[in-house]
């Protein structure tokens, strides 16, 4: 049994980050609760729901075009955590949340997340299976469906969290044109972030998407893991600075070590 070539250092770094997270989870279990900076986009979900309740409209939730079994899986799961919280808020306010999906494999999980949100709000009978809609596997099918829901079904707020490609611009443009209160963000596809930043009222950037579930749940154990991630960032920043200094002096030692 041997390590695959070029993965030894990656294994050590991964182990370091995981151990740092487990250490902080244990600290949180011991009562040392971490302080997490506010994420305005996630705080604004309540505002989005309140606006829909005032105007008698619906909330549109878009999970993007990602599935659960590829590299887009983490973003999709992060989006589903937001859907659960959003459903809870909507159920408490007595309004509907509509979630069009492009991946059939996400349907049962999204349905369960929405149902759980309604149960948590103490209003399970308000959950409607019809509000989880499969709209084809095409990204443009998703875009046109969302534009239709905004235009015809009176969606006055929208929350977009998941894996997105070019269709997100069409969705947020239609929303901005209709005056929809929009919160949006994606993790992996950095080329789509500018559209969320420019067209949405609040946007999530990069790791904020992955932190959404922990942030919204306010569970100390989940929040502890977020602090553990910061150790990973400190390690990465330290390696970058060290590599830069060594490179200035003509050494490729760190480069060679990291490639082991």
């Amino acid at each position, binding site marked *: 049994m041997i390590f695959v070539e070029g993965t030894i250092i990656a294994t050590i770094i991964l182990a370091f980050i995981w151990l740092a997270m487990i250490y902080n989870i244990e600290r949180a279990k011991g009562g040392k609760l971490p302080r997490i900076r506010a994420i305005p986009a996630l705080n604004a979900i309540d505002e989005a729901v309140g606006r829909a309740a005032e105007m008698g409209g619906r909330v549109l939730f878009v999970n993007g075009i990602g599935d659960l079994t590829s590299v887009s899986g983490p973003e999709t799961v992060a989006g589903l955590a937001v859907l*659960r919280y959003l459903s809870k808020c909507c159920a408490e306010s007595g309004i509907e949340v509509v979630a069009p999906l492009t991946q059939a494999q996400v349907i049962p999980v999204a349905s369960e*997340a929405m*149902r759980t949100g309604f149960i948590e709000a103490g209003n399970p009978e308000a959950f409607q299976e019809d509000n989880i809609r499969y709209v084809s596997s095409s990204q*443009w099918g998703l875009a046109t469906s969302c534009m239709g829901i905004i235009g*015809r079904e009176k969606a006055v707020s929208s929350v977009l969290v998941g894996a997105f490609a070019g269709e997100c611009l069409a969705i947020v443009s239609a929303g901005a044109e209709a005056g929809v209160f929009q919160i949006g963000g994606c*993790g*992996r596809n950095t080329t789509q972030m500018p559209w969320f930043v420019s067209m949405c009222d609040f946007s999530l950037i990069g*790791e904020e998407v992955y932190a959404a579930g922990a942030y919204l749940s306010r569970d100390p154990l989940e929040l502890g893991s977020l602090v*553990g*991630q910061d150790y990973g960032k400190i390690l990465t920043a330290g390696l970058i600075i060290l590599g830069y200094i060594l490179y200035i002096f003509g050494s490729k030692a760190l480069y060679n070590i990291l490639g082991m």
Partner: protein
Amino acid sequence: MSFFRRRELYVAITFITGLLTIFDYFISFDALNNTAAALRNWVVLIAYFAIVLGLVNTFVFHGRRVFRKGQQWVYSAWLLFVVVSITLIGIFSGTNHPIYSFLFTNVYGALGPSGYGIMAFFIASAAFRALRARSFEALILLTAVVFTLLYRAPVGGIMPFIPQIGDWIQSVPSAGGMRGIIIGMAIGAIGMGLRTLLGYERGYLPE
């Protein structure tokens, strides 16, 4: 609570399959690698079978709307007609049949490029919204965009300093910012992976 709806069951399956897949990436060991390869094949099969869920969801939602004569039921009826027609033609005449090929190429095939086609107008609209210099930060953004546009335009090549400034914007602040986001995102994904494996990430789990 039913055994199949127990949260512990979902977490246990996620933990075992997740760890197997992660170890497969780092460790070369035949039994482990073969098991992980089999799991990946299962995933592909399950994903294909899941398309049935999509069909059922579509038929239930739009069928109900048609029978109840709900909002825009005509669109739903048309959608169901198209789904059934294309499926029947594909099943009974094969995917090489001229009618199937015509519909696929000239209807479905044309819709994708049409989607990309309208993006130009959405991009212009987004740029207009983003580039209003309402604050100092927005002014910096606007300045950077003007230089980048000139750098990318043919005329930029003959203007003094534009190629150098445009190249610097793209390769230093823009690339640096993007890499910072990517590193943070990668660590965020690692963290989320661990939370999911240990069952702390509960957003997708039933109560």
